[in-house]
C-alpha cells in the first residue's frame, strides 16, 4: 500500500480549495439537472429517454432512482434548499408532497405541453401532471396457462393450489388484489367496492390456500413466474411484466373481463428547486409526443398526450379504473397493519 504522501495531500487540498473558490470552473459546460424518480424506471429512462433529452436541451441529467417514499423523505429533509429539480412519483405519493408544499404549480406558458394532455391528467390546478398511465392486470405464465385468466375470480379457483403469488399490501401494487377481492365479495363495481375494505379482507383471506407466496421483493416474484413455479401474480404493472415478455420470458399480462386498473404516474416541479427554467423544459419534454412515444414503445405504458397514438394492443386508458388515492393514502397504514396480522 502506498501511504498518503505530503505532496498528494497538498494537491488534494489545493483542488478542494480551488473548487470552493471557483465553483463555476468545476461545474463548467452543460447545465446539470437532478431528477428524482422510481428505481424501476431507471433502466429505460437511462437507455432510451435521457440521451434524447440531453441532446435536445443540452444538459446533463442526474437521475436519483429510488422508491417514491424515499424521494419524499429526501424532499422533506432538503426543503430549505432542494437538490432535486424535477420529481417523478406515483399519484398516491404526490398527494402528501402537494399537501406539504414540496412541489410548485406549473403553468402552460412555461410548459406548453401541459395544455395538450388527456382529461384528468393535470391535478390540483397544475401541481402535478401524469406523463404516463401504466395498466394493471393479472400476470401469468404462458408456459403453464394455456389460456389467459379471464376474471379476477380465477385466482381463487381451487385448481391453482399453491400456484398464486400476490404482492404484499406494503408494496404499492398490493392494493389491486385487495380491491378486486372487495369487488368480488360485494358484487359492486370497483368505484363503490373500493370503500368496502372489510369485505376485501374477508375475501382475500380465503385466497390463502392458493398462495405460493406473498411477496415484498418484486424481482423474486417475477422470477418465480418466469420459471413457471408461480402460475399467476395478481395485480401486476404493464411496465414490469411486458418488459420481461419483450425480453423473451414466457409471461404475459391479462386484463380480466371484470376490469383492469390504471396507476397514473406524475411529474412535478420541486418548490424552490435549482435550475427552474431547465426544470420546466424537462417537464415539457416528458409531456411531449416525442418522449411519450419512446416510453409507450419501450416501457409499455399508455401515453397521456392527446397527440400520441396508443400503440396497437394497448388497452384504452378510459376503460381502466383509477381508485381514490386520497382515501387509500389516509387508511393505508392501518390496512397494512391489519394485513400483516391477518395474512400470515
Amino acid at each position, binding site marked *: 500500500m502506498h501511504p498518503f504522501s505530503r505532496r498528494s495531500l497538498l494537491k488534494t487540498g489545493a483542488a478542494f480549495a480551488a473548487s470552493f473558490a471557483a465553483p463555476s470552473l468545476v461545474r463548467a459546460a452543460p447545465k446539470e439537472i437532478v431528477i428524482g424518480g422510481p428505481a424501476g424506471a431507471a433502466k429505460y429512462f437511462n437507455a432510451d429517454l435521457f440521451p434524447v433529452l440531453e441532446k435536445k436541451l443540452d444538459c446533463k441529467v442526474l437521475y436519483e432512482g429510488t422508491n417514491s*417514499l424515499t424521494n419524499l423523505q429526501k424532499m422533506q429533509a432538503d426543503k430549505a434548499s432542494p437538490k432535486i429539480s424535477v420529481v417523478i412519483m406515483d399519484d398516491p405519493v404526490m398527494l402528501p408532497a402537494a399537501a406539504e408544499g414540496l412541489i410548485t404549480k406549473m403553468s402552460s406558458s412555461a410548459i406548453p405541453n401541459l395544455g395538450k394532455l388527456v382529461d384528468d391528467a393535470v391535478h390540483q390546478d397544475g401541481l402535478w401532471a401524469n406523463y404516463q398511465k401504466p395498466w394493471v392486470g393479472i400476470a401469468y405464465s404462458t408456459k403453464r396457462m394455456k389460456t389467459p385468466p379471464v376474471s379476477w375470480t380465477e385466482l381463487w379457483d381451487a385448481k391453482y393450489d399453491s400456484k398464486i403469488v400476490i404482492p*404484499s399490501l406494503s408494496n404499492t401494487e398490493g392494493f389491486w388484489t385487495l380491491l378486486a377481492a372487495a369487488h368480488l365479495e360485494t358484487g359492486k363495481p370497483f368505484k363503490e367496492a373500493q370503500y368496502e375494505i372489510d369485505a376485501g379482507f374477508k375475501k382475500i383471506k380465503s385466497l390463502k390456500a392458493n398462495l405460493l*407466496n*406473498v*411477496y415484498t421483493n418484486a424481482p*423474486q416474484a417475477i422470477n418465480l413466474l418466469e*420459471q*413457471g*413455479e408461480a402460475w399467476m401474480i395478481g395485480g401486476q404493472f404493464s411496465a414490469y411484466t411486458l418488459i420481461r415478455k419483450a425480453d423473451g420470458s414466457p409471461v404475459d399480462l391479462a386484463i380480466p373481463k371484470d376490469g383492469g386498473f390504471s396507476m397514473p404516474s406524475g411529474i412535478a416541479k420541486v418548490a424552490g428547486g435549482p435550475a427552474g427554467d431547465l426544470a420546466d423544459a424537462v417537464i415539457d419534454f416528458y409531456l411531449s409526443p416525442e418522449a411519450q412515444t419512446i416510453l409507450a414503445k419501450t416501457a409499455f405504458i399508455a401515453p397521456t398526450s392527446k397527440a400520441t397514438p396508443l400503440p396497437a394492443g394497448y388497452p384504452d386508458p378510459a376503460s381502466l379504473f383509477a381508485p381514490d388515492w386520497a382515501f387509500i393514502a389516509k387508511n393505508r397504514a392501518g390496512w397494512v397493519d391489519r394485513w*400483516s396480522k391477518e395474512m400470515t
Partner: protein
Amino acid sequence: MTDAVLPAPIVKPAPDRERLAAFGFVAPSVLIIALVFVLPLALLLGVSVLDAKGGVTSAHYVRLLGTPYYLGVIWNSLRLGLLTTLIAFLISYPAAFALARARGALRSILLATLFLPLAASVIVKAFAWTILLRSDGLINTVLIALGLIEDPIRMIFTQTALIVGAVNIFLPFMVLPIYAVVAQLDGRYAEAAATLGASPFVVFFRVILPLTLPGIIAGVALVFSLSVSAYVVPTLLIGEKYPTLATTIAKAYLLAREPGFGAAAGVVLLAIAVIVVALSAMLSREPK
C-alpha cells in the same frame, strides 16, 4: 506526585503510569465505539420511549409485548435463531474435526468449500435455494427419480426451506470457531484418559467436549445473533408468512412511519442477542 514516583521506578513499575498508557492505547477504539455504536444505540433507546408528539410513553413496548401477534413475531425470531443454531452446531461439530484431521489438498478443498460461499451475497444464496427447492427443482427431480416420492413436494416458502437456507448461509460462522479450537486440541489428553480406563463415551463427554467448549460458545453466539436478526433470509425464503422482528422493524420505519415502534422492536431484538452473548461469555469463563 511525580517526585514520589520517580525514585523507585525499577522496583515498582509505576502502576499509575502503566494504567495511563493502557488507557491511551484503548482510548481511540473506545472513542470510535462510543461514537458509532453506543451513541446510536442510546438514541434508539430514547426514540423507543417517545410518542408521536415527543412525550415519554411505554406504549410501544406495551404493544410489542402485550399483543399476541407481536409475541408471535418475537417467538418467530427466537425460533429461527434457536433452530438454526442447533442444527448448524450438530453439522459443524463433526465437520470441524474432519477439517482439523484432514491434510494436504483435502484440507485446502474443505476450507475452500467453507470460505468460498462467504464471497457470494446472501441474496444470491437465497435465490439459489428457491431454484433448488422449487417443484421441478433439483431436489424434487432427484427424489422422484429415486422413486421416493411420486409428486413434487411443496418445499419453497415453507419453514423447512427457511431453516435449511439459514443453516446453509450461517454455517461457516459455526464451523470456523470450533475448528480453530479443535485444531489446537492436544490429542494426548484423550489418550491419557483412555489409558486410565475411560470409555470412548466418557472421553468424549468428560475430556473432548469441555476442551472444545470455547469454540462452541463462540460459534453459538455468532450464529444465534446473526440468525435471530436476519432480514434478507426470511424475506426471500418464506416471505410475509413468517414475520420476524427484523421485518417488523423495516415495516415500522419504511412503511408505517412509526420510528418509536420500530425502535422498540430494535431494542427487544438487541436485548435478546445481548442476553445470549452474555450467557455465552459467562459459560466460557467457567473454570474447567
